[in-house]
């Protein structure tokens, strides 16, 4: 398992429900700093982005993540994921 990737990656970030509303956007293309390896690293980085992301990520424990449509825990490695989504616990059905 690689500890840190050697180069920055550009990914699509998607936001749903109140994360989307607070962030004020539904998706964006972002180049991630090279030292972001796990889902937890990414959430911590989002909190530092300021602006609308401050409110959107004020309660990070309430946010779930998916890499390429698959739920991930905070220790999951981003690896080659192309699309990363942030959203609250689901309430369908």
């Amino acid at each position, binding site marked *: 398992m690689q500890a840190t990737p050697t180069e920055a990656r550009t990914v699509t970030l*998607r936001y*749903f*429900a*109140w994360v989307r509303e607070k962030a004020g956007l539904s998706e964006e293309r972002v180049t991630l700093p090279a030292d972001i390896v796990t889902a937890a690293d990414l959430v911590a980085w989002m909190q530092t982005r300021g602006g609308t992301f401050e409110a959107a990520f004020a309660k990070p424990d309430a946010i779930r993540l*998916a890499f390429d*449509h*698959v*739920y991930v825990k905070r220790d999951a490695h981003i690896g080659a994921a192309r699309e990363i*989504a942030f*959203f*609250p*616990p*689901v*309430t*369908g*059905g």
Partner: protein
Amino acid sequence: MSVRIQEADFDISAEIAKLTAGDTGIGAVATFVGKVRGLADGVALSSMTLEHYPGMTETELGQIESEAKDRFKLSGSLIVHRVGTLRPGENIVMVMTCAPHRGDAIGACEFLMDYLKTRAPFWKKQADARGEGQWVDARDTDGDAAKRWQTNKL
């Protein structure tokens, strides 16, 4: 096994007819329909808006159906989930399962609903009479309902 996400309403009788057509091995069809209630925690709703994550929704629901197929002896299943803005009394979701015997059909229908509630990426926002919106919180009872199946694993 199939999954549909749509704004339009669905017709249960028509869906049963399609799902069971030509298969006389089917002895049981179980259907669940979830509807928008007029009251939420004592507050009258004017509408409910459903958002989903296109792509991931189909992936998750397809996986849930595949798990149901492993656990139950099914002849077929269908999940239809609506998105968009719905009024009280309108249909939100339909889960239909058919099987040779009723235990499998009813069990799978319940299993699909429990997992759909906890895993399928849909979010509900309710609006009260003044149009004030509020995102619906996930319910612990839904998580508990889904957990039952983990200790029940075949």
